């Protein structure tokens, strides 16, 4: 019997109908000098327009102006590609335009990644990541891998369409604390589950903590397939990965206690955000 796949993560169309120009008016880079703000807007628009050569041309001027690589990734690059996603969702952009914007992200990340990795502080653990078998997407996974490296992890990236056997071989070889499965399609997310089943069959489930992520992935899916943690975005994934190798390093992969602890990380973040909002409004 084939698996029925539930995906609950569906954007509300209302959320997407915001006006991008309005968001430019509200200054998102409040504390940046005006020439940097202009540069940011240009990087953002080059990504939206899919001009990858222009995008990479602007990365060095931004770095020369003392903008950190991480700020570039989390700032104009993230907002630019988010606008591309919005346009795709709204039938304003189609696959050719999205592919061109993806190229921009790749070319900019090509310059920024070594710099972010070089920022790496102390060694805190090893993570094996890969996009599951049948799935060719890797921008999101690359961003997570890069952020993990910057946070002090050694990251072994197995690339795209990685069969379960390759994950298992890599876990044997590199002895990571964490393994991350990425999937960007509802048709391939099932392979996350299959890969976990392979781990169990090999008796290795307790050896590693399993992270899952990707556009169709949700906490509910993570719970259902028995993964330890779900990273809603790269920053959350890094936060949880750190917790896994520090506070919870003695709990084994697959242990319900670990799962609960990971949910608690989310709950704490939500509470902190709520407190911040309240402080700002009050």
């Amino acid at each position: 019997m084939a698996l029925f796949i539930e995906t609950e993560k569906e954007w509300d169309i209302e959320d997407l109908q915001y006006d991008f120009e309005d968001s430019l008016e509200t200054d998102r880079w409040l504390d940046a000098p005006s020439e940097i703000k202009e540069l940011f807007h240009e990087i953002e628009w080059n990504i939206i327009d899919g001009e990858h050569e222009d995008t990479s041309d602007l990365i060095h001027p931004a770095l020369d102006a003392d903008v950190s690589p991480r700020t570039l990734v989390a700032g104009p690059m993230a907002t630019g590609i988010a606008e591309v996603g919005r346009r795709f969702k709204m039938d304003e952009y189609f696959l050719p335009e999205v592919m061109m914007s993806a190229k921009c992200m790749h070319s900019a990340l090509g310059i920024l990644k070594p710099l972010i990795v070089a920022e790496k502080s102390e060694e805190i653990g090893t993570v094996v990541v890969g996009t599951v078998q049948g799935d060719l997407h890797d921008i999101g996974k690359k961003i997570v891998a890069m952020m993990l490296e910057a946070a002090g992890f050694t990251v072994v990236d197995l690339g795209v369409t990685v069969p379960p056997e390759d994950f298992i071989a890599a876990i044997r070889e590199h002895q990571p604390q964490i393994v991350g499965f990425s999937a960007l399609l509802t048709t391939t997310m099932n392979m996350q589950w299959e890969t976990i089943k392979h781990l169990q069959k090999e008796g290795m489930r307790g050896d590693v903590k399993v992270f899952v992520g990707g556009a169709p992935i949700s906490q509910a899916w993570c719970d259902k397939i028995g993964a330890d943690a779900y990273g809603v975005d790269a920053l959350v994934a890094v936060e949880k990965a750190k917790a896994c190798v520090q506070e919870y390093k003695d709990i084994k992969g697959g242990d319900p206690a670990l799962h609960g602890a990971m949910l608690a990380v989310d709950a704490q973040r939500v509470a902190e955000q709520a407190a911040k909002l309240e402080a700002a409004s009050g």
Partner: protein
Amino acid sequence: MAQIIKNAMPPERKRVIDALHLREPDLVPIGLWGTIEGYQNLRKGIGMDFKADPKDYRTGSTTWTTDVSFELDIAEKLGVDFVRIAIGSPGGSPGFREIQFDEIPFDMGIPPPSVDINVDEWGVIRKWTPHEQGGYYEMIGYPLFHATSAPLEEGLRILDEFPWPNAWDESCLEDSPIPGMTLREYCKFIREETPFALLGQGGRGGIFEQAKYMVGYAKIFSDFIESPEFLEEMLRRLTDIEIDFNKAIIDECGEYIDWMRMSPEDLASEKTAFLSLKMFDRQVKPHYVRGFREIKEHYLKKNPLGKIQFHSCGAIPEPFMRGLIESGVDGYDSLPPKVARHSNPAAKKRQLGKEMFFYGGIDVQETLPWGSVEDVRNEVRQRIWEMGHGGGFLLSSSHRLEHDVPTQNVLAMIDEARSYGRYPLPTDPPPGADTGEGYEPWSGERKRRRRPSRTRSTAARAA
């Protein structure tokens, strides 16, 4: 099998011809298509013998799909109205043609893969990927990937020297689902000795679809923006080949084929089209107009009643469908029902029902494999009510029947179509039918924000 009086049209075939010509027949015509595993299960399920080795089956379309032409005994037992036939592969055996990587007559630009592979006549490399029962071929190597990545002149030279499949190879027409019969003999047999109408497929890859396979899914879409000249030349050549393959089968058996199906051309996801309308109109449609019109003209000389059918999965918005009609297309399959509502079956019928016929429509993503018999019956009633009025609807699964479709669901589909699909159809909608209430047309191509002038591109700033 009842002996058919020559020249008198049997009810099965008449039903199909009526539907194709947008007239109301006596019953909604029915046909089936499936993967080899789905077909084996179905035969097993209704107590018929079957060949255990998939390689003993003649495939229904291209070498790499595990798609099968249903044999006449099962068609008769299930009481369907038409069967399908497709041209064979050039220079190869029926069905699968397995060659080794080092036999590929040109440079693929990649190292030899380490897994079980299949290479088709286009040089596309596929890896055998098993599932619970059987498996399928997953693409892993694209023969023109290196050409589209090369400078234009080099790319065009590779296109020029590429060993394209030869549509006029006699082996394409050598075999049929009945061992020992040529394709022409088989088609003649269907017409003269059986009551079934015949759907024929000549193409062996397609135009836009084959282009995706030649350079890979990731590359093809950026080519629309980055390498339009290369893409244009590749699509031109693929159109020539599509025309040739279709002419080859038309020349051989066109008079026995009741309608033709062009090679599948997937143009859309379940949400919307892959390309913007502008790109489609400028970069794809002209090839369709040239190719389909030439094929149709050739076909009508052999069979003046002939019609041509276009396949795409997904939700193709109405303006794209208009472009297909302009290129001579008379009908559309496979009508997946669970796509965006702007392009679901009921919407298609409302938008285009007076201009084209529709084929397919019963969901293979959920209802047929996982639904109950009652779910299947409900869906059949809904689809017939939505699509059947005025004729122009041939009922089938919305894609191949796969190994996970229970036999009782297929039988329920046929049974319900026979009892509910009797003309004149009921005027009141069955529960759950899409009556068009609250429908909103496709909203794409809205005017989008232009880049603010203050953020000029690097090139513009340099100038």
